[in-house]
């Protein structure tokens, strides 16, 4: 049976790569590799996963330098020779080994006013939102984000501007800007228009390229830029 040479980040912010030999298996995912190390070679290895089928978004890691869901990444897709390098997601503090601290990432969702707000009550009838409207189509295109942090880790603007809200938070804000039931605008537009907001995006498109859900946060951010400009010209900001 052939072996994989796997370098895994060990430690917190300070640490080092440690090498492991893992048996090569058919249809083996990167998460299988990490699990093998933790179960059979080094039980002190810390990593996160839950569903193993690409639904929860908790197993994001940097594999050979690229942010990915490890559960949906087959070794054959990413291997270089017989080597793999696995690290925690970039742009986030490391708690231990492959576990990144996601709290800052989600704080930015709150800062971008990523929470639905409405003045309707349970006594009101259901809002009727036609799927054919432009707003609903924009929201539909961006709504499937599960908050895995892959786009945030892939973003070079986050890397050089730590205050930047990042693709996921801005993508979330864009879905709510297009939600006709929501009434948190223009405060939301104000929140996403600062030096750390949508205007900081340089359209590198790394987020859209690597999003495991095949969403396009870049397009959402461009939409926010348009919405903010329009609000500005209307004197709403």
């Amino acid at each position, binding site marked *: 049976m052939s072996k994989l040479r796997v370098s895994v980040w060990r430690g917190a912010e300070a640490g080092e790569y440690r090498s492991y030999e893992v048996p090569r298996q058919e249809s083996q995912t990167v998460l299988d590799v990490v699990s093998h190390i933790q179960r059979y070679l080094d039980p002190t290895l810390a990593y996160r996963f839950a569903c193993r089928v690409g639904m929860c978004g908790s197993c994001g890691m940097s594999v050979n330098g690229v942010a990915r869901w490890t559960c949906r990444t087959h070794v054959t897709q990413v291997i270089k020779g017989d080597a793999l390098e696995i690290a925690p997601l970039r742009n986030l503090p490391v708690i231990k080994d492959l576990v990144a601290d996601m709290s800052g990432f989600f704080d930015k969702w709150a800062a971008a006013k990523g929470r639905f707000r409405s003045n309707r009550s349970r006594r009101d009838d259901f809002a009727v939102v036609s799927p054919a409207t432009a707003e609903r189509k924009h929201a539909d295109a961006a709504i499937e984000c599960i908050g895995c942090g892959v786009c945030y880790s892939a973003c070079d603007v986050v890397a050089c501007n730590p205050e930047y809200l990042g693709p996921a938070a801005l993508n979330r804000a864009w879905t709510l800007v297009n939600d006709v039931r929501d009434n948190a605008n223009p405060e939301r537009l104000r929140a996403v*228009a*600062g*030096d750390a907001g949508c*205007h900081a995006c340089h359209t590198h498109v790394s987020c859209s390229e690597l999003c495991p859900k095949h969403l396009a946060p870049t397009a959402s951010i461009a939409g926010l830029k348009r919405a903010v*400009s329009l609000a*500005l010209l209307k004197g709403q900001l």
Partner: protein
Amino acid sequence: MQARLWLAQRLAAVVLALCVLVHLITMIYAVRQGLSAAEILGRTRGNLAWFGFYLIFVAAVAIHAPIGLRAVLAEWFSWRGKSLDGALLAFALLLALAGARAAWGVFR
């Protein structure tokens, strides 16, 4: 603030795209026609339309370039705040003055 700057930069970019096009076409025309410097100056001197055109061109440059540079300096050198804005305002004025002087040079 940044939203306004972003919008100003994009609008200046639209103006710049047109100005660069007119400028290049004019240059190519001048070279192909074999116009001398004196002949070119003969056409620009006292011509308010060209003077106005180049003043608009210079204004667009003075708006567009410092805003772009602001983002580069902030991200590459972590230079932010009032000192950066002050320095770039000075840079914008320098571009505007140098450009206006050049436009005036071919007008008077």
